[in-house]
């Protein structure tokens, strides 16, 4: 490729990236502005200060929310990985009567929107007395049809000979699962893990429903809280909260990107 074309392509990429990221960049910019800048619709803050950040941490328990989000997202990630990998292992390797039918049933649940079942799920959770506890925020998400599907597809690509060789070596089914299948599929486990962490982190409606006080409230609800307390009109403060909320996810993506790339090249066996 000649340099002229490369330059053009990079210029286009840069512009599209700028457009795509504008809301986030602007949020970062606003989070450093004082009230006057915001009111004048300035693009960049006239003076640079951390006042908004100080204020947001003092007006709502932001760290507490962050901790809750972190706990909930981690628990859901671990739960989903455990349930999905076990189920996918059975669907991929252990034949039994009606297995394929069962798998189709699992897949079919993908077609039911989560919102459609939310009321009944809420009633169940309420009945169990889980409201305002981590259980309500995590356990309903442990079984993920998408995760089962993703992992099963990957497990299917494991050469069956590996499974048979392990059988001859005398591994039990469960040993094959964690000593052969899981290490072999490390990359798709990481992918699913990141996916479930991020979706859980960004979840809004359900946490709003099942929490009535701050004890286990997550960061997304916390942001909403910002608008109800007196700082609602101070956009700089709200944006500071937003930046704090998205920072962990950005960091996660940056770290995992490296990991994912490494994994993609490593996993290739000839």
């Amino acid at each position, binding site marked *: 490729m000649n340099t002229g074309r490369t330059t053009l392509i990079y210029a286009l990429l840069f512009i599209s990236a700028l457009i795509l990221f504008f809301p986030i960049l602007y949020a970062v910019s606003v989070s450093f502005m004082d009230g006057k800048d915001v009111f004048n619709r300035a693009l960049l803050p006239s003076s640079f200060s951390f006042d908004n950040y100080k204020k947001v941490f003092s007006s709502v328990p932001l760290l507490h929310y962050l901790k809750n989000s972190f706990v909930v997202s981690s628990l859901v990630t671990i739960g989903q990985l455990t349930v999905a990998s076990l189920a996918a292992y059975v669907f991929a390797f252990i034949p039994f009567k009606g297995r394929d039918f069962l798998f189709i049933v699992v897949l079919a649940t993908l077609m039911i929107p989560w919102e459609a079942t939310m009321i009944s799920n809420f009633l169940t959770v309420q009945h169990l007395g889980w409201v305002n506890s981590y259980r309500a925020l995590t356990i309903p998400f442990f079984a993920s049809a998408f995760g089962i599907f993703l992992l099963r597809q990957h497990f299917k690509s494991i050469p069956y000979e590996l499974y048979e*060789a392990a059988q*001859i*070596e005398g591994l039990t089914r469960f040993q094959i699962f964690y000593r052969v299948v899981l290490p072999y599929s490390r990359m798709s486990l990481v992918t699913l893990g990141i996916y479930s962490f991020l979706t859980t982190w960004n979840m809004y409606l359900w946490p709003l429903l099942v929490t009535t006080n701050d004890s286990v409230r997550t960061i997304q609800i916390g942001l909403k809280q910002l608008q109800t307390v007196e700082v609602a009109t101070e956009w700089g403060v709200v944006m500071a909260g937003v930046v704090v909320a998205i920072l962990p996810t950005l960091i996660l993506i940056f770290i995992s990107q490296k990991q994912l790339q490494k994994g993609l090249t490593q996993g290739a066996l000839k």
Partner: protein
Amino acid sequence: MREIVLDKVSKTYDKQSFAVEDVEVSIRPGEFFVLVGPSGCGKSTLLRMLAGLEEISAGSLSLGGKLANHLPPNKREISMVFQNYALYPHLSVEENIMFGLKVRKISKQERKRRVQEAATMLGLSDYLKRKPRELSGGQRQRVALARTVVSQAPICLMDEPLSNLDAQLRGQMRVEIRQLQQQLGMTMIYVTHDQVEAMTMGDRIMVLRDGKVQQIGTPLEIYNQPVNKFVAEFIGSPPMNMARASIIDGRLVAGNELSIKLSQSDLAKIGNRSITLGIRPEHIHQANGQGRVRTTLLNVEILGNETLLAFNVNNTIWKAKWPGQWQLTAGSPIELSIDREQIFIFDEISEEVVSSPFNKDTVLEGVQTL
């Protein structure tokens, strides 16, 4: 060491047809036993039943005198080498070799010792820290073999282990596997569709076709005394030449090209069945006045130490193998002679041997040629 006895072992996948049917054989301890046959004849299925990876539909398998039909794979004291080697990509060569030993809770020192020994034996010492993807095909094959060596299982099963290698490496690994088997004294059951591997490696060969055993015997028995047309054609390269033939005035005639005088005993054996004539390429010589073939040369392949001639007999292409280098031109007429003593005659319908060099009455034959 234990004997492997199969008694009327059968396998059906769809309950309608047999993938393997009524296999009866006993394999002696320390024997190199080769299963050979064309693709889809049931070799892998049979091997996998021996390994316990596939259920036996009917019949019985016993290992060392004990019924083993339902024994799980790891209780059968076997090791297995797969066509694609089945190495764990996330483990290093060393860990791959040790994998089974760890599971069997063999002490760390013993594991190390066995791995060292096997690695030296197979020339893998320099590669122990690498991952399988950083090895060549031949090296991966050796890792798979090393796994067998360290397991010290008395029985080893191999399913076409050399089919992913190039011809030269295959020749080399053939010798290595054979040596390894003799050195360790293990019983080897080896699946291949390559008749050269079967001939050169096996103590005994079992030829399979459509799930049925055709013949079991030493390589030379199979080569010299095939029981039917299928075995005769399958073993040998180039394969045995075949042509439909008939008896006219006491002579065996195939098309316009071939005509041979037969002995009385052969004629008696043939009676009035329809027959196929078979002759191996190395038994067709330059014209010497006997068993004449008159035809046109179709093609000449000079292989350095021998020359392959192709020609037509009764609308089938035959090949003759002559030692040395023969500069002949394709398209020219040629006269050849057939070793009368080397002729095979098969029943055209049952494909069984009617007459072969080994069931001829040699005394009568002597009288006839006088």
